[in-house]
């Protein structure tokens, strides 16, 4: 994590979101730096997806500032907005692929929209993104309804990567996948991050993903946010955060990813290190 540029790509200040009488966010501040994987966690209804939607412009906050690549997205002109949209990719929960188009056509939608490219080059790029997302060659000509849930997510990721974005937003990328597929998806994100230099903003419930690939973690609690490295979060004494990271599932995920020496003292760790 050293060597991160100090200028944040995304800068959220004093964000307030309210629906009817329900306050979801009450003064949320968040910085996302280039090249990091930031995991967003929080209980159900704590506003993880609302935060993501606010940053990508699908939800207008009641109060607060959101800057992406130094542009205030809430006051951006249409041209500025399009320039930003070229530089990010979003993977929605179930892929959100256009059901009337094949997977390859889905990937070509942003290419067609933003650039004037010959069809042959678009087909090559679509195949490349399929490969990067770990999909087999024949997936391109299939329709979304013909794919399994895990493949739909990979196809959604391929579309999110179509324009070689600098940042990708992932909304619960491993939810609904079996543990093996979820682990593979984590590896995929880590590979793409290191090779493409991606910044990843990931809403997740998956503790294994957090320990496996996240550089920093942001926890939404009490309508605010707490951000820090995993080690800092593990030492945080907020009751919800303690329950989250030190519950049985949290401990299991830590043991799976951390070197056993850190967990010295527990019988399982002792036996595996021996």
């Amino acid at each position, binding site marked *: 994590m050293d060597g991160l540029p100090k200028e944040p790509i995304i800068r959220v200040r004093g964000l307030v979101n309210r629906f009817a009488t329900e306050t979801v966010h009450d003064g949320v501040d968040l910085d996302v730096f280039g090249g990091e994987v930031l995991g967003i966690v929080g209980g159900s209804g704590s506003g993880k997806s609302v935060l993501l939607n606010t940053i990508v412009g699908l939800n207008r906050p009641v109060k607060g500032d959101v800057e992406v690549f130094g542009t205030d997205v809430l006051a951006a002109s249409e041209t500025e907005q399009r320039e930003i949209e070229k530089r990010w990719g979003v993977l929605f929960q179930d892929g959100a692929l256009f059901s009337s188009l094949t997977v390859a056509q889905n990937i070509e939608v942003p290419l067609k929209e933003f650039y004037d490219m010959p069809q042959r080059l678009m*087909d090559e790029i679509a195949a490349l993104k399929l490969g990067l997302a770990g999909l087999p060659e024949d997936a391109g000509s299939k329709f979304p309804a013909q794919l399994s849930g895990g493949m739909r997510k990979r196809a959604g990721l391929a579309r999110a990567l179509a324009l070689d974005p600098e940042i990708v937003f992932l909304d619960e990328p491993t939810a609904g996948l079996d543990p093996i597929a979820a682990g593979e998806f984590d590896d995929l994100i880590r590979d793409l991050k290191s090779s493409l230099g991606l910044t990843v903003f990931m809403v997740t419930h998956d503790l294994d993903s957090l320990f496996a690939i996240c550089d920093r973690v942001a926890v939404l609690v009490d309508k605010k946010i707490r951000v820090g490295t995993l080690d800092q979060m593990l030492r945080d004494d907020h009751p919800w955060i303690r329950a989250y990271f030190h519950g049985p599932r949290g401990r299991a995920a830590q043991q799976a990813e951390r070197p056993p020496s850190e967990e010295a003292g527990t019988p399982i760790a002792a036996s595996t290190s021996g």
Partner: protein
Amino acid sequence: MGSAAATLKTTEDADTLVLTAAGEWLVASAADLDRRLRSLELPQRRQVTIDLAGIDRIDSAGAWLFLRTEQDLSARGNHVELRHLAPTFAPLFDQVRAGGALAPVSHPRPDHHSLVGFIARIGQITLGLFSRAVSLLGFFGLVALTAARLLRHPGRLRLTAMVSQMEQTGVNALAIVGMLSFLIGIVIAYQGADQLRRFGAEIYTVDLLAVGILRELGVLMTAIIIAGRSGSAFTAEIGTMRVNQEIDALQTLGLDPVEVLVMPRLLGLLLTLPMLTVYANLMGLLGGCLMAWAVLGITIPEFISELQYAVAPRTFWIGVFKAPFFAGIIAMIGCYEGFQVSRSAESVGRLTTLSVVESIFLVIVTDAIFSVVLSALRI
């Protein structure tokens, strides 16, 4: 963004061809670079060096262009070397090399452009129609069985749901049905008066209006409006429930979807449509009556006495008699298409359209059959 543009230079160096690339090889300039790379005259069996020293920034589209060129050159027997690749870009090239081995995606072409494809499509559509007819008949049987079971156990009829359906399909449709029937009455009276005046037979406008509205148009207009308004709603409601797996949930809870969802809609519409028809008839006659008064000077008492003379009660009853048949068609098609929805949201829209088209079509066909049969029976 937007500092050094991407450049590509070709130089001959002894027996080596050198391609020197520099600048930002990003997806934004990929189309231009693709054109330039493709227009290069590729040599055969030579030593080729691709020099990447001047690359400032590159993304996967840019890396793909280099790797594709490398592949193309190798395929022509050249010895290719990528040189001076900055170490920071090496993982990207590895990743693209691993992922980019795929052939460009091919788009499936619709095959109905050929003659055989065209004939095959006709066959497919015919078979599809046939299997739909069979499955619709099956659905009809299922509903009939459920109805018979309800007759034995009337307590299982969901009255609340039925009344709520009657409110939605009947009470909430009063404004639109009344308005349109009123206007139809006006149109018929006006056109009839225009024609009949030439023969001095203006008074027969009332006959034309009464027979036209009571026997045919009142019930037909009502059925068409309800098919568009409620038939589509049935398909969309049941279809959305299928997408959400609510139908599956009903079944696992031991509830019969036909009993819970179809019967209240079917019985509700069977009761509602005749009542709406009577109302539509009244509004149509009212519109015609006002028009006859305005254009022909036929007063309201004259209109009523001519009406009593012109139409037998049978004319009225024939119109109302057709209503439950139309109601059955609309409700059955609407519910059936709802159950045909697969788990994709897209099919809800497609089947809703289909349900409206089918039910209007069948309503008009049935009306034509009634006309032929009734005239053969001289009723």
